[in-house]
């Protein structure tokens, strides 16, 4: 039986049609087939969170989604949300608070933080920590990351940064 699957999906607003190997996960598809290198592969078994991207508007572990299963889906990566400017304030805050360090976890952290702020516009520091608990920062720069997210939440609510 053939292991190749034809898919047609939207990636960062552009229509993409491709023939993929059934076992190809979404991050390999994005990086190796489409050349979108902003999404990172880490553990490749759903633990580290470095591969977080959006599918149909919600964050997922890209390594735990088969590209073959995404026919008709809408995928957004850090490249897409950077281009639209949707998370410009989060990106600026990550830079200002030195929340990037090596940068490996950063694209996934940003997409996770964006979903948190969509769902909860006034998260406490504890709620921020809980929501990003599935995204590992091996530089252990969590404090600065929480600071950055907290700053953006405050600014979006029209308050001075804490």
């Amino acid at each position: 039986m053939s292991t190749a699957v034809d898919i047609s999906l939207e990636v960062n607003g552009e229509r993409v049609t491709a023939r993929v190997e059934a076992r190809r996960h979404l991050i390999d598809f994005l990086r190796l087939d489409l050349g979108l290198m902003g999404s990172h592969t880490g553990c490749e078994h759903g633990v580290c969170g470095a591969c977080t991207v959006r599918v149909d508007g919600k964050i997922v572990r890209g390594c735990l989604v088969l590209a073959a299963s995404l026919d008709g889906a809408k995928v957004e990566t850090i490249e897409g949300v950077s281009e639209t400017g949707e998370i410009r304030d989060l990106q600026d805050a990550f830079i200002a608070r030195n929340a990037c360090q090596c940068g490996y976890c950063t694209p996934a952290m940003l997409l996770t933080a964006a979903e948190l702020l969509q769902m909860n516009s006034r998260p406490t520091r504890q709620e921020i920590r809980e929501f990003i608990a599935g995204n590992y920062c091996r530089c252990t720069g969590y404090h600065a990351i929480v600071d950055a997210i907290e700053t953006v939440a405050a600014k979006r609510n029209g308050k001075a940064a804490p």
Partner: protein
Amino acid sequence: MKAPPFAYLRATSLEEAFKLWTGAGPEAKLLAGGQSLLATLAFRLSEPGTLIDISRVPELAGIGMAGDMVRVGALTTHTELGASDLIRQHVPLLAEAVPLIAHPAIRNRGTIGGSLAFADPAAELPACCVALEAQIVACGPKGERRIAAAQFFTGLYATALKDKELIAAVEIAVTRPGERSTILELARRSGDYAMAGIAARAKVAAGRLVDPNLVFFGVGDRPVSALRAMEALAGKSVTAGTMAAVNAALDTDLSPPADQHGSPEMKRHLARVLLARALDRLTSEEEKRAA
């Protein structure tokens, strides 16, 4: 690591799913949310030959009422479960369990049917279903049958599902007046599988626990009903004397295996701590309402 090669087939109806499954050979597996399956494939713990994607089968989706039962379709994601008004109102234990399951990105994709079929002994939803006396609706090519959750989990990652049977839905009776439930777990990091956990349910009247149902997870090869502890607790209020008897009974209910988290004795200790906290929640909630 990369998964081994396999073929991929997508079913768009239940009938098509069974047709593809029957034709795909004995090693074929169903793919729903994939949050456990794709990780095990990455480790090459199984080589299914063919994956049959059932994530778009409409018969397996949705949450609704079926008489006085809430029917939760197998494809309901953890996120959908936590956001459902029907679940919050009629089966609050499930809504309470959702934030304990893995992480947001996994909850957006993982399904209740997948969690039950995978039957990880440390998972939250299997224990909740046992505590809620849920019916697992199993579906084969010839139709549905219902399996009581307590009989569904038969061992480590093992269920009562037969060959070419899948989970179509879970049916749970709506919470009755006076009934309380809660779920607690201890994990080293938020979102990890629990070292130990408890799903507890009881009717609370004048501080006494009527028909308590105590189900532990992460302490055995499947969700463990603490039958002797339940008997020792039934009809009693939570006093030091009651708890001594209940904890002694609990020790005979559990025989936890050692695992990467710790020794059997440590698990027994965690189970006692969780039980005390769960009973405190069930009863103090009543006091708050009375106040």
